[in-house]
């Protein structure tokens, strides 16, 4: 019986889709059978981040309306064994499906998959309600910014009033050089404000942009963010993985090389 996890944030642009893609790829690397679902109707993105945009035939709305069978709409990611994508519809609006229909779909997927990851749309309207309807667990993505934290807090409150108890936090795009200068909130600051358990902290890593350009999850590349995502995946499966030290660019080695550059 699989677990349904919604990846949500409230605010847009904090890294929900990238996180969903990478957690999906990472969990499949841990030999789990994973389905990732893009629930953002009208603004399809997860397929592009994963590099599967050319393989779409059917989508989420087709499955719900019964135009096709579930198996026909699931796209298999050839690079990762046991990773499947259910893409969103680009043409339908967000009222095309209901929370009840999502619940039914996720319960069907539970039979077949170990993990079902739902990429939630930004906002707190129907798209959000659809995405959380069938979820057992929520991962809230935020960045160390006032607006993103504020929205995350709203989302946590809404999840609580919808009886979703298991909530964990990912803090994305941390810049240690700025943290050291006192110009960016620390992981501890953000965790304390939102008061839910931390499941991962991700450095602001260029490799994520490069990965997205190529349609390749960063988890497959040798990078700090890739390692951090992999650690989150292990924690999702219940392993106790220590949090890695986020290194700033002005670390010992770069300081040392800077020393030699001076004349």
């Amino acid at each position, binding site marked *: 019986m699989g677990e349904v996890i919604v990846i949500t944030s409230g605010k847009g642009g904090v890294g929900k889709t990238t996180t969903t893609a990478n957690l999906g790829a990472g969990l499949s690397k841990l030999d789990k059978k994973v389905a990732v679902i893009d629930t953002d109707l009208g603004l399809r993105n997860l397929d592009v981040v994963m590099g599967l945009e050319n393989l779409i035939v059917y989508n989420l709305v087709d499955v719900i309306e019964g135009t096709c069978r579930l198996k026909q709409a699931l796209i298999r990611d050839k690079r990762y064994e046991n990773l499947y994508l259910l893409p969103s519809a680009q043409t339908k609006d967000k009222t095309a499906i209901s929370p009840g229909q999502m619940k039914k779909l996720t319960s069907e997927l539970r039979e077949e998959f170990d993990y079902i990851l739902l990429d939630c749309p930004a906002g707190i309207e129907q798209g959000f309600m659809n995405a959380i309807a069938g979820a057992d667990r929520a991962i809230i993505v935020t960045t160390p910014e*006032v607006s993103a934290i*504020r929205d995350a*807090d709203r989302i946590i*409150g809404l999840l609580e009033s919808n009886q979703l108890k298991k909530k964990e936090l990912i803090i994305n795009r941390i810049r240690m050089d700025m943290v050291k200068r006192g110009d960016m*909130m620390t992981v501890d600051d953000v965790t304390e*404000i939102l008061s839910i358990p931390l499941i991962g902290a991700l450095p602001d890593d260029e490799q994520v942009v490069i990965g997205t350009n190529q349609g390749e999850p960063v988890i497959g590349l040798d990078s700090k963010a890739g390692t951090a995502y992999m650690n989150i995946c292990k924690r999702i499966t219940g392993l106790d993985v220590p949090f890695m030290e986020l290194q700033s660019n002005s670390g010992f080695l770069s300081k040392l090389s800077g020393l030699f550059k001076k004349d």
Partner: protein
Amino acid sequence: MLRKSSVSIAKDRIKALIISDRVHCTPDAYENICRELYSSLSKYMELTEDDFRVDINRTQVIITFAGEEA
């Protein structure tokens, strides 16, 4: 450095925002809540302003004061 770090400004702002979001009130309402709670409670118990604190989370209003240990 003389300037106030931008993090401490951010933390003050986010804390005020979150409280007003959680209790659906204006940011300065929190100050008033604290003041009024302090003045009501101080009628019945000995309080000092330094030790008196009001925290509002998603489901609770928590009043902290340094009284005698029970």
